[in-house]
């Protein structure tokens, strides 16, 4: 009889294991994202290195311990243009509080970006992603897209539209180091 009980037990274990594996596969298939790894809120922001219009290299990891407001934009995009002056207004204040505004232009001619900057009177760092590497890395679809990165280097929010002055202020405050 002991042998039979054992057999029954083994069968139950086998069945449970197989069903659990199948369930795990299904759950994995549902939760895994598309072929491309798309960044989501809560993910670690991937590090990158880009040069700004003045030739200074910026690494995201340089800003560890500080908040980063990472804004992807293009000169032809009206909402991008609209939110820039607000960012300019708050840029200095928040830099002192440990929150950095970094803007990344997605591969336009350098002169075009310079003309835009001079025209708008912008002074925050404008990074130039001339090979669109960082744009692909962050999987940018609509412009503007803004990533709020906290002092620990985590993406806490992804904003895929233009922002009002008030929203920008709130977002900047949300990633301020304590």
């Amino acid at each position: 009889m002991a042998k039979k009980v054992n057999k029954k037990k083994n069968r139950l274990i086998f069945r449970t294991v197989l069903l659990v594996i199948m369930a795990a596969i299904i759950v994995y298939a549902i939760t895994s994202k598309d072929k491309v790894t798309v960044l989501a809120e809560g993910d670690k922001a991937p590090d990158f290195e880009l040069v700004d219009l003045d030739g200074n290299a910026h690494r995201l990891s340089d800003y560890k311990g500080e908040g980063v407001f990472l804004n992807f934009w293009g000169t032809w995009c009206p909402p991008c243009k609209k939110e820039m002056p607000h960012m300019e207004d708050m840029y200095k204040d928040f830099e002192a509080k440990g929150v950095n505004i970094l803007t990344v232009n997605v591969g336009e001619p350098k002169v075009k970006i310079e003309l835009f900057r001079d025209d708008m009177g912008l002074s925050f760092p404008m990074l130039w992603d001339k090979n669109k590497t960082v744009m692909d890395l962050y999987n940018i679809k609509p412009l503007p897209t803004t990533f709020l990165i906290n002092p620990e280097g985590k993406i806490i929010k992804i904003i895929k539209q233009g922002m009002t002055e008030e929203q920008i202020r709130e977002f900047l405050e949300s990633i301020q180091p304590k």
Partner: protein
Amino acid sequence: MSNIKCQCGHENPFGTELCEKCGRPLSEKAKKSDIVDMRYEGSSRRSQTYSSSIIDKIWNFFSSVKIGVSIIAAVLIASAIGTIFPQKFYVPATTDAEYLAYYERLYGTVGKLYYQLGFYDMYNSWWFKILVGMLGTSIIIASIDRVIPLYKSLKKQRTRRHPSFMKRQRIFGEGEIVNTKESLDNAEKKLKDFHYNIKREDGAILAEKHRFSRWGPYVNHTGLIIFFIGVLLRGIPGFYVDETMWLREGETRNIIGADGYVLENRGFILENYTKEEAEEVFGAALDKVGSVVKNYQTDVTLYKKKDGALPGSDDLEKMKDYSIVVNKPLTFNGYSVFQMDYKLNELSTMTFHLVEKTTEKSLGEFTVNLSNPEKEYDLGNGSTVDMLGFYPDYDGIKDGEPYSKSPIPNNPAFIFQMNTPDKPEGEKSFIAIQQTLEVEENDYAVKFAAADTRNISGLTIRKDKTLYILLLGGLVFMIGVIQGMYWQHRRIWIQEDSEGHLLIAAHTNKNWFSLRKELDKLRESADLPAYIDRQDPELDKLEQEGDENIWT
């Protein structure tokens, strides 16, 4: 649930229809029937046992063929519905609201429902994945539940069967034979000639061939499972990439889907056949349509990010120069970049003259590279032209400013400042195609002289590490199909019963006609009782000689 003990002494699992060893009918159903159901050898399918725990209940659910067929039907129906309207992939939208708007605008309420139920992105919808997962589970469990008992009972089968088993076979015969020993010897010899495996114990023969044909369906299912695993692996990053990108001549761009690689387009070439070189083959076609393309080619340079360098940095090393032509992709590190598409003649540079309006005398010319314009163009004779504004895709004035609707130079417009020795403080002018605006009357003008164009290559980036897994799955699948289709598992039992009668019975999983033909040939060389095919008795009566009255 207890075992069933057969009269022969063998203990059978609960649910067994026919004793695994001697073949006596055990269930009421089997006892009553004229011909026993030989599917799975009358063995106990594991699903019919133990349904005490929730695990067993789930297991039994998936073990059911009815459930399996229902799941297949559900997958089929869902897939069919998924083809009614275009899938997400073909819809020009990026946000959820845009997708909804698209389906609602084009297909009304049905379209809205189609979107809401997830049919618009079916292969990524949770319910489709669950269905396919359930199908996989059903295939695995149903197979396990059948192949193991089948294997066991075929392995355990005894040479001598109980007469009640023999009598319930579809092909059965019984009769008095003069010399049973001689008959059995002759039968054994003949059956060996037919390539049967023979087991003989005193007064009984079991002849069997092509048992492996019974494993065909399970081999086939194993192939399917391997195929599923391959498809599943495609979802894991690093196994499968299928992306497309446009790359302009002169442009250097990150390769989508291939992290750390950058590609430069050094030129796109489109060549046509000339009449002279291809008269023989394409002469008629050339006369008819004018041109036949000989070659689509993109000359590229591949760069790789140096080890340790961060994405976006200029720390790149050149890997190789290559000319991508159709079906000859650039390959590197498991990736292939294919020539797929092209666009010709996008504006790339514009050349202008600086002229004095009254004399129309040129002070020199300068060329603006539209993908990399400069701030100042020095004409060399004390005159310069400054770029004050550049609008690559000019689309009128918005909010008092020229507006560019995209970064692509479809309709370039500029604001130039012309600095000449005459007018050192400069004159401003807005220049668009066939349009010039001046704030006040200028002495000098920038006049368009010439334009140059460039081409754009459409490239596809592919990586597929699952291909060989899919191939293996397909191969195993086909082996299973062939195994089950082209061979039949045949068994012939001949035995002498206690009263000295000779009994003959036969079974096959398909192609009964051939089995009967083999039996007829057997009866030519061995003295065996006439048999009858009880699902087709008429046929047999006509063909056979000998005692036909045994059934009446």
